[in-house]
């Protein structure tokens, strides 16, 4: 197992380098000019100087290596310094990946935005799992019953209706017509007492629930089909033949075995919901990293887009690894060595 993890970690490194290269290369093929939005009165020489100052004068491979050095060496060193308070080398003059639009370090921008995303996305995933697992169990056990039909229908609807439609519908109903919940996330709100806490809960309710229902719909389908796969197997018949109660058969034998792929899927789904959050954040105006990405793309802020896209890739690789390790730990039939 340990050897497997080490091998996977070692394989993750070339994967991430390949992805960072792909991301960098795609963005470098950009036909649009970062100085294109500047006033036309700027003379061409000055425009050229601006391009130089943005680091665009160098050839492609040098810029890639520089970005990689800044991202993989300088930024981790900075984080290390900030958390431990140590001074490592020449920290004042260390180059950092800077946003073209704001001229501030990209990592600082992301750190500012990350808590909002984590709260909304994390809560919604948790709520989604809590809704999905019981629905999946009952739906599978009573396959084709009324509960299954309704549960299947609701989860099919939840899975098929995209969040950008449910989100807008929720705004039309709950904010515009009923005026119960705010439609725009107030990012300046600080939770200090009960009333601001309630305000925070109210403004988080819609984005969290919209994402949670979407996740729950998907997960309950997986839960149901995983249960169904197991319910027809011989060991279930054996357990029943031994005279075990239905509850024990279902909740001990079948549930444990069917949770194995579901846990893997939960881990695999975490990065995708980050990209799902891009849309939700856009609808409810949550100032998370998804919104930051959209702003960066619209403003052609290449370093910010590069770094954000790469961070999404790191998340995916990391959670893929976690899912595989979890699979090996949970399922004794899986042996990696």
């Amino acid at each position, binding site marked *: 197992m340990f050897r497997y993890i080490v091998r996977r970690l070692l394989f993750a490194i070339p994967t991430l380098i390949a992805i960072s290269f792909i991301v960098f290369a795609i963005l470098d093929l950009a*036909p649009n000019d970062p100085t294109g939005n500047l006033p036309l009165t700027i003379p061409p020489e000055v425009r050229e100087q601006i391009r130089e100052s943005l680091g665009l004068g160098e050839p492609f491979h040098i810029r890639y290596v520089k970005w990689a050095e800044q991202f993989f060496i300088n930024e981790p060193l900075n984080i290390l310094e900030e958390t431990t308070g140590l001074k490592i080398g020449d920290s004042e003059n260390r180059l950092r990946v800077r946003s073209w639009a704001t001229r501030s370090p990209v990592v600082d921008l992301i750190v500012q935005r990350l808590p909002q995303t984590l709260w909304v996305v994390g809560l919604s995933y948790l709520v989604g799992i809590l809704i999905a697992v019981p629905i999946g169990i009952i739906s599978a056990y009573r396959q084709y019953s009324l509960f299954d039909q309704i549960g*299947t229908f609701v989860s*099919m609807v939840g899975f098929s*209706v995209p969040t*950008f*439609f449910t989100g807008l519908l929720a705004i039309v109903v709950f904010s*515009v017509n009923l005026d119960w919940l705010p439609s725009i996330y107030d990012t300046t709100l600080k939770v200090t007492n009960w009333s601001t806490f309630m305000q925070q809960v109210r403004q988080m309710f819609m984005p969290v629930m919209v994402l949670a229902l979407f996740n729950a719909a998907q997960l309950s389908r997986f839960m149901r089909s995983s249960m169904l796969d197991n319910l027809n197997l011989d060991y279930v018949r054996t357990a029943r033949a031994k005279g075990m109660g239905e509850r024990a058969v279902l909740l001990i034998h079948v549930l444990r075995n069917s949770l194995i792929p579901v846990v893997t899927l939960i881990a695999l789904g975490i990065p995708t919901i980050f990209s799902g959050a891009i849309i939700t954040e856009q609808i409810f105006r949550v100032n998370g990293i998804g919104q930051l*990405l*959209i702003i960066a793309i619209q403003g052609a802020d290449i370093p910010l887009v590069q770094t954000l896209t790469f961070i999404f890739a790191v998340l995916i690789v990391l959670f*893929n690894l976690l899912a595989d390790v979890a699979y090996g730990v949970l399922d004794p039939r899986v042996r990696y060595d």
Partner: protein
Amino acid sequence: MTNRLIERDITAAPGDATLKQLSTKHRSLWLDVWNQFRNHTGALIGVAVLAVIVIAVVLGPSIHDIDAQRLDPRIANEGPSLEHPFGTDNLGRDLLAQVLAGGRVSLAVGVVAMLISLVVGTLIGVLAGFSRMLDGPLMRLTDLFLALPLLPLLLVIILLFRDALRTALGPEAGIFLLMVFVIGITSWMQTARIVRGDVLSIKEQEFVTAARSIGTRKRRVITRHILPNVMSPIMVSATLGVANAIITESALSFLGLGFPPDFPTWGRLLFDGTNFMTLTPERVIWPGLAISLTVLSVNYIGDGLRDALDPRLRGR
């Protein structure tokens, strides 16, 4: 053998009553599948709803023949009326005509992108499952693609290549090809993995060993023995692929980076309607409903197909 003789006799004398009776006993795989599919109410309703949507989108514009792009500011932001059943938008364009026109593009994107991803996915899955030499590299490629952050990358690719392709291939063909290509080329991985897994288990089964032992060529083993047996997961992922492609296209358009406003899809209409949500909510509701109903019915069809094609579930 007798079965075959009877079939031959039927074609020779189709009017014979006793032979007709015998012929009802003949069961093919697809008849079984259809019988099981028929019992799935959701899938049948899905087929009906999808058929209505497809017919409306294909034939609708010739019945409701208002030009989707005709501006008329005098009738801007009107509610539903007999002449404009879905109302009009802020420039006075007829919403029903726009939804019908948008549906053509959305459905076409869904189908073509699905075909691309299906061909790529099946090819890679079969090759990886069948040839031990290619398995490693192809699966690493699949892993690499699965690790790509798709939505951000799609947004970036479309932003960067939209204008270049629009000038090269014309405004409509350019953006259509770009969308179809990027969606297809980024959604084949699941199909490839499922197909590979199935091929790996099928190629170890006795009938494949038997086929090989009588000297069947590799290509023939694949096309004759393996591909038919992985058809069911391929068909299921094809239906789900259409739904996925439509959702992806709408999501991109919704973020403002898909189809342009003069060549709208359902997602684009939804995006344009967002700012007028309080004034004319139907601008959000109709395109959103169209996307949702299409995806829902396609998903139901996929669900029914999955149940119908699984021999373990059939006949329950």
